């Protein structure tokens, strides 16, 4: 009785899938992967609470002491809260990559998307893009919260806002791309988290303390130093300019991505 089904000739799955469609579908899959992981929501919540919370507190501060802050743009809240909050966003981008190695999920991922370049691009765009976009929204939220809490002391000029949010987006974008690249390169959560902390927080603060010129020069070329400079204008050292900071951050992000891509494309999936 069992009606035997015969298997038809294949049409799909063949090499002929247009790359644009493949990329779009892989991005859709990555997006589902991202929002169905609990950790994503934790990190986003942590970043939101940090930025909006600190922005509100700063707003109340300014409101209670109108003399000194009168007429200042509330957008400053976006910049100084971005510094601590970025760690949650960097961790989010990084774990999106490394947790797949920890759980072995990279094996099914590559079974479903064997073109590794496509998987790399989609995962990078979705992880870094989501973290950056969320960060910019939280920065907006922090500024508005600060403005409301301080009413009517602070202002919210649009042109300044565009400039500030652009800077925040650049810093978060480069940072999360660096994190994603390191994740693909090291494949290990602890190792890449430590590396990110060293590059963004520890070394930029530590190296200049020794007082050797060359160590300070090294610190000036670290992504953490440049992120801090772009966001809050510190530290003021002759070696750090806006251009040098932008170039340095792009360089770090690009280097990490290229190395991470090479490891993904060349090596065995997860050994």
């Amino acid at each position: 009785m069992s009606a035997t089904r015969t298997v038809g000739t294949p049409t799909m799955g063949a090499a002929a899938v247009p790359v644009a469609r493949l990329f779009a579908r892989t991005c859709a899959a990555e997006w589902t992967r991202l929002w169905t992981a609990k950790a994503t929501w934790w990190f986003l919540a942590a970043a939101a609470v940090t930025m909006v919370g600190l922005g509100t507190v700063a707003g109340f501060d300014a409101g209670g002491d109108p003399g000194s802050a009168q007429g200042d743009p509330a957008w400053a809240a976006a910049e100084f809260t971005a510094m601590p909050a970025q760690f949650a966003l960097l961790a989010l981008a990084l774990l999106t990559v490394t947790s797949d190695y920890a759980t072995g999920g990279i094996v099914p991922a590559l079974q479903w998307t064997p073109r590794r370049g496509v998987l790399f691009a989609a995962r990078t765009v979705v992880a870094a893009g989501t973290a950056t976009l969320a960060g910019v929204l939280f920065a907006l939220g922090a500024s508005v919260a600060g403005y409301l809490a301080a009413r009517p002391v602070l202002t919210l000029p649009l042109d300044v806002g565009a400039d500030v949010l652009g800077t925040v987006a650049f810093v978060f974008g480069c940072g999360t791309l660096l994190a994603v690249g390191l994740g693909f390169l090291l494949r290990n959560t602890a190792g890449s988290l430590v590396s990110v902390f060293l590059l963004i927080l520890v070394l930029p603060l530590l190296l200049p303390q020794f007082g050797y010129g060359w160590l300070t020069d090294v610190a000036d070329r670290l992504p953490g130093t440049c992120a801090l400079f772009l966001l809050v204008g510190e530290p003021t050292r002759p070696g750090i300019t806006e251009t040098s900071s932008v170039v340095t951050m792009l360089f770090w992000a690009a280097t990490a991505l290229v190395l991470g891509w090479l490891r993904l494309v060349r090596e065995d999936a997860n050994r």
Partner: protein
Amino acid sequence: MIEVRGLTKRYGDVLAVDDLTFDVEPGKVTGFLGPNGAGKSTTMRMMLGLDRPTSGTAVVNGRPFTAYGEPLHEVGALLDAGAVHPGRTGRNHLRVAARSNGIPVNRVDEVIEQVGLGSAARRPIKGYSLGMRQRLGIAAALLGDPRVVLFDEPINGLDLDGVRWIRQLLRRLADEGRTVLVSSHLMSEMQQTADRLVVIGRGRLIADATTKELLAGLGHRQVRVRTTEPGLLVSRLQQQGRPARRVDDHELLVEDSTAVQVGDLAHSWGIPLHHLSDLEQSLEQAFLELTSDSVEFHGAQDTTPQQTQEVAR
């Protein structure tokens, strides 16, 4: 159709897969057999483009797996059932797969029903038993209705019902004309399921034949006899060139003979028999004979046949 040509994989000093060449044909269940560490998983990983071969090629329906943009329509595979994010629900895991290959989401619910995951599909995978994870992995493999399926040790962790279900599934997939490759270190299992066997040991091809051929061509037929005159029967049989040996006071084993032959001879000599039977040659024995030289992990002390058996189990 899967074509493997000169496939070799070296991890440092370990030659995990050594110049394998074989075909896996459509419409059949092909069993991929070998003791633990023989290189089955490594071979399948190379077929799926996960590990780079040191040399050689594996092509699936005419092209390397990595050339497929959306392979689920063509090739479905279950490798390591544990390799999934434990926090995700089974259904969400399958939704990611469906999205990545442009498969409609209602197909996800279909395969969930097909593998019998049911309501568990909406719970996080961390609460799944190994058997449920195997079913989830099989669901993912079947999602795109592929013409080629590869299962690496799918029986592991399944209860009796599950084992029976897998057997029927493999049979049906092959009867539908699909190419089915299923690995196992359990001979008894493959004896029941596989039409064809590719046997490897230490990364090398040991046998590539139908299950029948393997059973028939290997080892030798034996007959078990119980009699009141064992000594007389042994000497008479040996005169006939049939090696026989005493097992105990009343029982003997006759080599290279059938029960009919031994029964007729005993009758002609007037020797009374109380028991007469052919010993079934099992694939288990055949496999042990095939691979006894190539088992990688012998017991710590020495390599008696019993220990080889333990390893292969």
